[in-house]
């Protein structure tokens, strides 16, 4: 305990000293060995922090003044957590010497090795790490565009959308129908829509018990399905109804003016419509062709360096990272491997062989947690694959005490990973 505190204090002092000497110039990023990171989410903030720990000069570019996490945003929707509890500032990163620059990146220029911000400022890099997250395919569901999302929120990026959906749930009368429409694979946070259904049901059961959650799914199966469905039956009875693709769940069209959802077979006029549209990598990657005409960015899965452009690394949801799911935990794990690889490459040494973890907790209720986990390595074809015989889901026959413990560890995970990201 004493050692720990001492070491932490020393780190803080060192960070403060570094911050004082380097802040706040953009020119810092142009110094030899400078790394620029785009996006202060699970991937970007973690990469920046671990590069600083390795002694590398880092500029982190983020368009917002704080970061709100998608993990636990479902708890905000369910009225369990406040929005401020999922929002994190960058003071810790600055204290550790990360040069945090607020700005929206407009273009990436691989030939000039620089990025340009809205307003025209450019920042040069020796190596660029991009963790820009997702964008939506606005044309995929007829009638669902950015304007429609103000009325039928996706709430799949935590922020104003989360609050729109929460306000709609609060305003809904008892007996209303909340529709949740998850997309096909792959998409950000595969168990997320089903945790959302759970925590909205938790809220409705207590406050508006004649209401219903209707899941209109573009898929016939989903992550942790058996555990979720057993939990729903146990806790919520028939409050949650899941309509799979094969039974007409696929949403083809929406009419935001009347809050109507048209599936392949049917139409549903609902009180709250949470449409989670199909996704792709953030369109910023297109300014350098990093998705190679596809939805996601191909990379060397050992170093996360783009296979399209040298010296640009892409990680997190935007990347093709083998069989790792698109999750905050995956991005955090990838970021540490990527930071170590970038530090090695800058030093002229070989990047070490990676190891990754993804652990995903979901809350079926505030005291009812379930999980899935896997350990990942690089296999012979160079892609990331799960270690056979390890990982898996929570046992189906676990007692209530285990579910309660996993709910507690879900909160522990959140506290740990956000401190790992932001200091």
């Amino acid at each position, binding site marked *: *305990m004493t*050692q*720990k505190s001492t*070491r*932490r204090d020393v780190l803080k002092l060192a960070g403060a000293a570094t911050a004082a000497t380097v802040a706040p110039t953009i020119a810092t990023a142009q110094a030899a060995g400078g790394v620029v990171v785009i996006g202060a989410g699970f991937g970007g903030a973690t990469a920046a922090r*671990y590069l600083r720990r390795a002694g590398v000069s880092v500029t982190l570019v983020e368009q917002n003044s704080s970061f709100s996490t998608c993990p636990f945003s479902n708890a905000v929707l369910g009225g369990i957590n406040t929005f401020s509890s999922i929002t994190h500032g960058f003071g810790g990163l600055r204290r550790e010497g990360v040069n945090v620059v607020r700005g929206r990146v407009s273009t990436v220029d691989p030939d000039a090795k620089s990025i340009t911000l809205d307003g025209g400022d450019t920042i040069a890099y020796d190596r660029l790490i991009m963790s820009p997250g997702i964008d939506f395919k606005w044309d995929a569901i007829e009638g669902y565009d950015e304007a429609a999302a103000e009325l039928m929120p996706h709430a799949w990026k935590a922020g104003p959308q989360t609050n729109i959906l929460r306000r709609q749930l609060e305003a809904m009368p008892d007996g209303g129908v909340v529709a949740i429409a998850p997309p096909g694979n792959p998409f950000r946070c595969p168990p997320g829509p089903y945790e959302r259904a759970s925590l909205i049901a938790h809220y409705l059961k207590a406050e508006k018990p004649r209401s219903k959650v209707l899941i209109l799914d573009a898929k016939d199966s989903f992550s942790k399905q058996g555990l979720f469905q057993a939990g729903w039956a146990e806790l919520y009875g028939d409050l949650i109804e899941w309509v799979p693709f094969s039974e007409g769940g696929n949403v083809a069209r929406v009419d935001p003016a009347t809050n109507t959802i048209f599936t392949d077979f049917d139409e549903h006029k609902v009180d709250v419509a949470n449409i989670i549209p199909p996704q792709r990598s953030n369109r910023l990657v297109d300014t350098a062709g990093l998705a190679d005409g596809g939805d996601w960015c191909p990379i060397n899965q050992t170093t996360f360096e783009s296979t399209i452009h040298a010296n640009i690394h892409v990680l997190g949801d935007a990347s093709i990272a083998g069989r790792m799911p698109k999750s905050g*935990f995956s991005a*955090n*794990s990838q970021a*540490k*491997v990527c930071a*170590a690889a970038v530090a090695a490459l800058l030093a002229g040494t070989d990047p*070490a*062989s*990676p*190891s*990754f*973890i993804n*652990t995903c907790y979901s809350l079926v209720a505030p005291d009812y947690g379930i*999980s899935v*986990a*896997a*350990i990942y*390595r690089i296999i012979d074809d160079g892609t990331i694959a799960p*270690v056979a*015989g*390890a*990982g*898996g889901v*929570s046992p189906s026959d676990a007692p209530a005490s*285990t579910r309660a*413990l*996993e709910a*507690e*560890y879900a*909160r*522990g*995970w*959140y*506290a*740990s*990973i956000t*401190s*790992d990201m932001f*200091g």
Partner: protein
Amino acid sequence: MNPIKTVVAGAFGAALLALPVTLPAAADETAPANLANACAGCHGTDGISPGPTPSINEISEEDMIALLTAFKNDEAAVTMMNRIAKGYTDAEISAIAAYFASMM
């Protein structure tokens, strides 16, 4: 203070005493830092947890090897670590234990 230590001393102490301690094998190709940094996702940076998940930064090398081996062999009643520990060879478990011990 440290729930993992209580666990070592308590419920599984007897089982752990009977376990053979695996000696560190030849260095694995996966860098110890790459193995150990992934733990921080749940247990906090350098194994220091700010929340209800146990910290793992003050566990001796021997205890860490014994714990992870017990988890791997389903000899301890845990919710998550039995699934995680199965993803590592004995040599990797030793490398992780040595990595955290070196920071104490």
